[in-house]
């Protein structure tokens, strides 16, 4: 029996989203309270709401071993704007909105800063959740009533998966690369997608794609003499991870004028530049479809990239988490593995790591933390080291592993759930495409704003041609111009976006990243508010 998320359950989730109960307080406003001394009796005390730092120490105490001055400087150095300053301000505003509605020209905060679809109303794919529920509480499979509540193919799939797990123990640590049967399904899915075989032993399942990226950075970087080529603009996981591991980010600039194109000449130039400075460039990171830029690489471009990596002896780190988010008919996703194999390149020719995640696509299951990397072209002694690193954390979460296998082997024509699955999938993807277009058009109408189309992924990255007066005002506030714009936008409209500086950009250019994820019925209001704000901003700062 088919179920869609309706009624009460959806309401529960809707309500919680509207409340957006983030109890985060802006940590930079924590007052330094004198040390708390415990009386000798051990009866419990009540914490007053502002004294949450009773248990935390004064920043100025230098007698403690762990202070801001003495922690790992790489931690201080790294940054991650997607959940940075703007978001902190937004959360404070959100709290304030509860009691001070009239103080603001908007009545809700709309988070367009993060690719978190289900927090903005996107529904999970029913079939996937059916399987996950059955695997969570396997006693359901022994009950006849279950057949009335779950589709027959979800029951079948749950049995299949459970039989692949030793002892059907979904609560046990699995093999450190992930459950073998699930990796088989993923390998099959990769083969079906690409037309080239995949080896389940090449798959390493991780809690989301991000830990896989960290593992590779750990492996590749020994010191600041090790460089990683990263696209600018880039998703700041890369810059943060490189900083945390003490390496050097070697930027290569995507060309905004040609739809964020990737030029091999630019890659070559940056590579030579880095090498001349004594940097050993170890890898090239490519995000395809791009984040924040949304471009989908052409196959020809991809072939050039593959050749480049092969010639220069670079590991190709292919972040392909948005592979199912393509919104334009003239572009298609081709995995780098497929491209390399189509060129006749095998294990001996190219070291390639491909990342995939359950967080994006049409499934948008961010909170599950599921993903994998497919590692090809490494010698066995290197792979052993990757395995070893994976084993220290034992394994990734089983539910996420199951979901990773499901997204790579979804319902097929003829399956009981196929019709409703396809309807859900197409519904989500076509809606995303519409929203991408609507927002892109709206942004391009704004004075001094140009915005490349979102060919894929989940973001728009408009370019702000800010008047000199605005730039000066930003400087006066000691903040980057795009940050200044975004803060103003937030305070005027409640819309949260991320300044382009968080992703890096060609110096002297300004952008912001906005997701296309708010539900379709909210988009007109967002467009109106954004347009009105921009108009008044330009009125204020026009040269």
């Amino acid at each position, binding site marked *: 029996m088919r*179920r869609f*998320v309706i*009624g009460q359950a959806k309401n*529960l*989730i809707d309500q919680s*989203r509207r409340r*957006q*109960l983030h*109890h985060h307080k802006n940590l930079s406003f924590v007052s330094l309270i004198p*040390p708390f*001394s*415990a009386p000798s009796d051990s*009866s419990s005390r*009540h914490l007053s709401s502002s004294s*949450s730092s009773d248990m*935390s120490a004064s*920043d100025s*105490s230098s007698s403690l071993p*762990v202070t*801001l001055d*003495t922690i*790992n400087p790489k*931690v201080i150095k*790294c940054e*991650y704007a*997607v*959940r*940075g300053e703007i978001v902190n301000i937004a959360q404070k505003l959100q709290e304030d909105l509860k009691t001070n509605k009239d103080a603001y020209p908007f009545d809700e905060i709309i988070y367009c800063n*993060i690719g*978190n679809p*289900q927090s903005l*109303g996107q529904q999970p794919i029913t079939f996937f*959740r059916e399987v996950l529920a059955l695997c969570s*509480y396997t*006693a*359901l499979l022994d*009950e006849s009533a279950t057949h009335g*509540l779950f589709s027959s193919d979800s029951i079948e799939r749950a049995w299949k998966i459970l039989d692949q797990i030793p*002892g059907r123990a979904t*609560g*046990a*640590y*699995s093999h450190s690369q992930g459950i073998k049967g699930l990796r088989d399904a993923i390998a099959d899915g990769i083969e079906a997608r690409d037309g080239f075989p995949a080896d389940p032993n090449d798959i390493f399942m991780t809690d989301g794609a991000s830990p896989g990226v960290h593992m590779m950075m750990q492996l590749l970087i*020994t010191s600041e003499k090790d460089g990683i080529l990263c696209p600018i603009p880039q998703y700041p996981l890369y810059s*943060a991870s490189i900083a*945390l591991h003490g390496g050097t980010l070697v930027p290569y600039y995507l060309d905004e004028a040609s739809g964020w194109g990737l030029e091999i000449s630019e890659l070559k130039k940056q590579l030579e530049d880095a090498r001349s400075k004594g940097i050993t460039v170890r890898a090239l990171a490519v995000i395809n479809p791009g984040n924040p830029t949304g471009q989908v690489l052409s196959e020809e471009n991809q072939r050039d990239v593959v050749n480049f990596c092969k010639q220069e*002896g670079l*590991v190709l780190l292919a972040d392909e988490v948005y592979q199912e988010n393509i919104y334009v008919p003239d572009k298609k996703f081709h995995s780098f593995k497929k491209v390399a194999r189509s060129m006749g390149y095998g294990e001996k020719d190219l*070291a390639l790591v491909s990342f995939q995640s359950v967080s994006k696509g049409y499934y948008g299951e961010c*909170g*599950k*933390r599921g993903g994998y990397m497919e590692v090809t072209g490494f010698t066995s002694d290197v792979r052993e*080291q990757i395995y*070893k690193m994976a*084993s220290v*954390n*034992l394994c*990734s*979460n089983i539910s*996420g592993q199951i979901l990773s296998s499901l997204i790579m082997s979804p319902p097929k024509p003829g399956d009981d759930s196929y019709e409703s699955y396809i309807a859900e999938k197409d519904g989500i993807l076509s809606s995303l495409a519409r929203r991408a277009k609507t927002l892109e058009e709206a942004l391009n109408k704004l004075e001094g704003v140009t915005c490349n189309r979102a060919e894929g992924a989940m973001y728009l990255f408009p370019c702000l041609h800010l008047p000199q007066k605005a730039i000066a005002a930003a400087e006066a506030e000691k903040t980057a111009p795009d940050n200044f714009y975004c803060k103003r936008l937030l305070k005027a409209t409640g819309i949260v976006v991320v300044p382009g500086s968080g992703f890096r950009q060609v110096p002297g250019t300004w952008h912001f990243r906005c997701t296309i994820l708010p539900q379709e019925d909210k988009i007109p209001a967002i467009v109106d508010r954004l347009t009105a704000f921009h108009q008044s901003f330009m009125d204020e700062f026009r040269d």
Partner: protein
Amino acid sequence: MALKALDYDTLNENVKKCQYAVRGELYLRASELQKEGKKIIFTNVGNPHALGQKPLTFPRQVVALCQAPFLLDDPNVGMLFPADAIARAKHYLSLTSGGLGAYSDSRGLPGVRKEVAEFIQRRDGYPSDPELIFLTDGASKGVMQILNCVIRGDGDGILVPVPQYPLYSATISLLGGTLVPYYLDESENWGLDVNNLRQSVAQARSQGITVRAMVIINPGNPTGQCLSEANLREILKYCYNEKLVLLGDEVYQQNIYQDERPFISSKKVLMDMGSPFSNGVQLVSFHTVSKGYWGECGQRGGYFEMTNLPPRVVEEIYKVASIALSPNVSAQIFMGLMVSPPKPGDISYDQFARESKGILESLRRRARIMTDGFNSCKNVVCNFTEGAMYSFPQIRLPPGAIQAAKQAGKVPDVFYCLKLLEATGISTVPGSGFGQKEGVFHLRTTILPAEEEMPEIMDSFKKFNDEFMSQYDNNVGYSRM
């Protein structure tokens, strides 16, 4: 000519140096043998469900409902789920910002962190601040995050008990720090040897190492000892005087098999000590859903609580947590359920209490069976497993065995464990994986195999061991402490 992209030589040295024996050589060999059809009893890792322990019913019901919220709308849901599970699922869903599929706050759902704080307050009798509690994908990730904060380079030393759970040595290696060992005293039931502690620190300092933190694992892994309150006070005073942050790995706090030394948290002891200690010692405490009587290893759910860390440092830790976006939401719900389980009067309480008690009482019995079993073997001496999930018998290898090991190119306890594996299918972890005194050998096994299978397993072990000892026995000087 194409340059070689990534070969073994150019890998990060820290990665190459790090070792994690729990899934190392013995485990890989055992997996190979399993593929060849041999029956293997995996006692290498604290993984209860893999050895037949059943998940608790109530949390699985709640999480299943959270996975598929459409079930809550179905009029027949009451046929499959008890009312309190349904209510609890609704409760946790309401704490999320979009169900299980949305990234939560990078520190974890505020509502769950509040429940954790309440649990800590009930347990210790002191207030706990949810803002200082971060949920993580397993306690291991939390340990890595904190050590990453503390270790600046190889000049920084971390005091780690020996024998230790090799997450610590592996992580310190990966982060380029220095492990400063302090040896637990096997003859004193793996108690803390303060003199050894002082010596280790002095030696490290004389080599120019700044000792930054001290790790305690309480109850111990692999050693199982439960620290007394006096011991904890001593340790906290020591950390205060030596300016060390204390990392309290307390993941086994619900696995206690004797009554003389119940679990007391480091935080409680610290608060009991009052000023200047209670506000002058920095402490990070770790807990998980993987152990206890829950054993939900595969969920990857954990948390750490920070005490006396400056707000700016907490901010930095938050920043690094945000790069990973959020811990997995299902496990956060497991954590919420673990710290606020069914109460008397709840519909599911009786079943929950029965299941929990059953598991804990059985573990207590198995701890005894195993300890006694090992002690009945030739040349084997085993301290009682006071807590946690492991048995760590000392194997007194005859010189002939050590010689044979050398010839085979193996560390002696690895040699013994491999032979044990080939003969009996019992997959253990050699003591060298955890660290031990020079010339003294152990192996770690878990107390997790099913109770009905224990006698046979211990017989099998005894048969192998006693034959092994006879084979290599030459009556000339044994390995011993």
